[in-house]
């Protein structure tokens, strides 16, 4: 490794510390700038049948001006605006209406929130603690070890610097939380309060919001007044994010001596977490909605993220409506289709990958072609065929069709897997007198296990997902697979969401569990397949 002088290390660490300190100062400056701008109409006055400049107009304007002055004395920044609407009345005379409004604009910096006693106050305190703590810990971690390379730091210095990084990260992550909590307070709580839907504590909170925004200046119905409040977040709050990010970068420099690998790793984790949340989100929806009461599934006020009461009897209700039977049908159908598809597909893929014969490319083309037509397109043809074969309205018929339509896919994937495995061992075995069947079963299949399992999963899932053919072919309720069975809960004019999702949940859980088992097997198979020899 290249020898780095301790003076270089010292300089680097000093720079990182200075960057962190400057960013903390910058953050404090930003927090002193206005973070939120509130606008509210304090007073409106309409004056009918007036024209700009006439007696009535002047009188109304005087009144408005007087009121505005009063507000100004109370410390509000107010603006008067007027809006003139002209029209012609039934007698053909021109009339107009003038509407005056006194609007206030108030700006609050982050510090103002500190004493407000709003929910976001706690978040703000946390942010401040995190920022101050990170700088303090970084300084403590740097003390006495400024000239030590990051990889030869002692445990204490490393731990302190590490903690500093995490605190800075927490501060960064809490800034959007601060904004979210404020949005929740100023929009959601006020909407609920005005609609009379607020839970315990809402009234108290609204009182506090009123006190925060207006002090004692405004009397009257707080709900009315506050629901007219508009607000926006200013740039200085969002500017905190890059500043705190720079702080984090400085502290990472102090801990690791470099940035790129840490940041790219962080970005990777963010990507994974983001995708996981996105993927799990529909499952969360299915889960909570399946246990909601009917009224709560169509709640216009969006009151609760979780069911207030977990209605377990939804499960009992759907079982009473035949869902278990549908599930059994689906399992039978998928297992059968997968078995048939693999029994036909593995030999075909083996021949395609390992043997030379005339018409190989024609067969390959045929395999692709057979996937061109979707079952939907072929429905008319399929139902005629099934009628002839006396397989309509039966699960066996569905099984065969699913197997057939997944053939091409299975062969493609298996052939790819077989081709990726060297044929040397099979060739050797063949020379030793092993026949092709033995070569396939003893040598190729164990080595191709990951690919086979992947194929198996795909076919199983496709059969499990199949919806369209079943809809048309199966008319007897007792033979319906679950995908068709659940549609009975969503009729044209009414959808029983809680039953739909409760049965969807039952349909999903077994497959998820199966997947988890196979996934382990898959990982093990893949690693063992990767080892040569």
């Amino acid at each position: 490794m290249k020898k780095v002088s301790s003076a270089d290390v010292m300089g680097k660490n000093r720079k990182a510390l200075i960057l962190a300190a400057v960013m903390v100062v910058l953050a404090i400056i930003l927090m002193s700038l206005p973070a939120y701008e509130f606008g509210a109409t304090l007073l409106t006055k309409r004056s009918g049948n007036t024209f700009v400049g006439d007696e009535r107009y002047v009188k109304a304007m005087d009144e408005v001006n007087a009121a505005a002055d009063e507000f100004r004395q109370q410390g509000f920044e107010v603006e008067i605006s007027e809006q003139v609407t002209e029209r012609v009345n039934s007698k053909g005379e021109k009339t107009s209406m003038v509407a005056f409004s006194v609007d206030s604009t108030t700006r609050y910096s982050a510090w103002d929130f500190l004493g407000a006693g709003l929910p976001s106050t706690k978040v703000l305190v946390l942010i401040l603690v995190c920022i101050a703590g990170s700088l303090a810990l970084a300084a403590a971690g740097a003390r006495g070890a400024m000239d030590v390379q990051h990889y030869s730091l002692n445990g204490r210095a490393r731990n302190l610097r590490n903690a500093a990084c995490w605190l800075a990260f927490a501060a960064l992550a809490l800034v959007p939380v601060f904004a979210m909590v404020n949005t929740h307070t100023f929009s959601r709580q006020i909407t609920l309060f005005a609609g009379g839907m607020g839970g315990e504590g809402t009234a108290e909170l609204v009182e506090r919001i009123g006190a925060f925004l207006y002090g004692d200046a405004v009397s009257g119905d707080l709900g009315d007044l506050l629901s007219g409040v508009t607000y926006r977040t200013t740039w200085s709050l969002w500017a905190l994010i890059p500043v705190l990010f720079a702080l984090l970068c400085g502290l990472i420099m102090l801990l690791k001596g470099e940035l790129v690998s840490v940041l790219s790793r962080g970005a990777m984790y963010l990507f994974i977490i983001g995708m996981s949340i996105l993927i799990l989100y529909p499952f969360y929806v299915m889960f909570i909605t399946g246990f909601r009461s009917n009224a709560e599934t169509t709640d216009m006020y969006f009151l609760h993220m979780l069911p207030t009461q977990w209605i377990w009897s939804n499960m009992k209700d759907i079982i009473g409506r035949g869902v278990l039977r549908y599930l059994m049908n689906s399992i039978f159908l998928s297992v059968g289709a997968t078995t048939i598809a693999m029994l036909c597909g593995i030999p075909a893929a083996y021949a395609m990958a390992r043997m030379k014969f005339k018409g190989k490319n024609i067969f390959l083309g045929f395999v692709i072609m057979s996937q061109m037509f979707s079952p939907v397109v072929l429905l008319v043809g399929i139902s005629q065929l099934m009628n002839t074969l006396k397989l309509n309205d039966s699960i066996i018929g569905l099984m065969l069709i699913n197997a057939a339509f997944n053939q091409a896919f299975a062969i493609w994937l298996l052939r790819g897997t077989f081709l990726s495995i060297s044929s040397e061992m099979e060739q050797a075995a063949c020379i030793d007198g092993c026949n092709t069947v033995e070569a396939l079963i003893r040598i190729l299949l164990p080595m191709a296990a990951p690919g086979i399992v992947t194929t198996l999963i795909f076919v199983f899932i496709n059969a499990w997902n199949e919806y369209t053919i079943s809809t048309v072919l199966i008319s007897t309720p007792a033979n319906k697979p679950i995908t068709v069975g659940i549609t009975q809960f969503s009729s044209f004019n009414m959808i029983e969401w809680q039953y739909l999702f409760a049965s969807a949940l039952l349909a999903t859980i077994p497959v998820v569990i199966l997947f988890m088992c196979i996934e382990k097997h898959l990982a093990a198979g893949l690693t063992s397949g990767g080892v040569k020899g």
Partner: protein
Amino acid sequence: MDSILVRHKWEPYVWLLPSIVLMTTFVIFPIMIVFKLAFSEISKAGIVGGFVGLQNFIDAVKAPAFGPVMINTFIWVISVVGLSTLIGFIMAMVLNQDFHGRKIARSIVVFPWATSLVIQASIWNYIIKFEYGNLNNVLLNLGIIKEAINWRATYQIEFMWECGVGIFVTIPFVTFCVLSGLQSIDAAYYEAATVDGANFWQKLRNVTIPLVMPSLTVSTVLNIIYVFNSFPIIYTITKGAPANKTDTLITYLYMLAFYDQKKGPATALSVIGFTILCFVSGIYMMITMKKEDA
């Protein structure tokens, strides 16, 4: 080529036989029936009459919905296949890295598969409801939005949601195809590239992509076909409403055949769709086979 000894000339055909029988019976026969119907007169009751030449095709193409439906189909296939391949590839690259919780992340990725398309589509249909949908619920309660947003204000936006759901459910497929390709790559290639001083992008371009290409080819060809033929998402979320404006070819011809009882034009459309897919896949197949020979 890696091929093994075969004792008899007819042996490969025996290996192929079960597959051929299965596909001929349940895929080829229905195709033949559909082709026959496309050129026949079919009454509303479904009684097949005589040969009518191209009359069914003329009826199908002249329908006012035909143009928009074809455009929708094009957007649907391109956006879903393109974006899901891109995102799935990135996901596979990430999942192939070593990180804490990799096993959990890998299990989570297969989750969308574990649910059938009808169920996924029903869930998303509920999520994006304006009046009581869960997306508004979550975003409002978390304080991310100020007031409920109408997520499906116009049919164009609804169609975009459908494409989004299509991408969402297709990603796991691509991810797993690419991942199994990535895992079969010998680590020695990367070691050699590292010794030669290759950076991340050079490794990606010169080692990873060429070696995953076979897996990616399979997944893309089949994706085009599956996505083109996809039915439940659009059928569940909008049913093609309003007035076939969000239909793709497949949902449109289902409606024609089973709601409007116009089986003639419907089978004609399916022949048209078949031709398009043959064309697309033919080009792709030629590229693939060329690469495999090289």
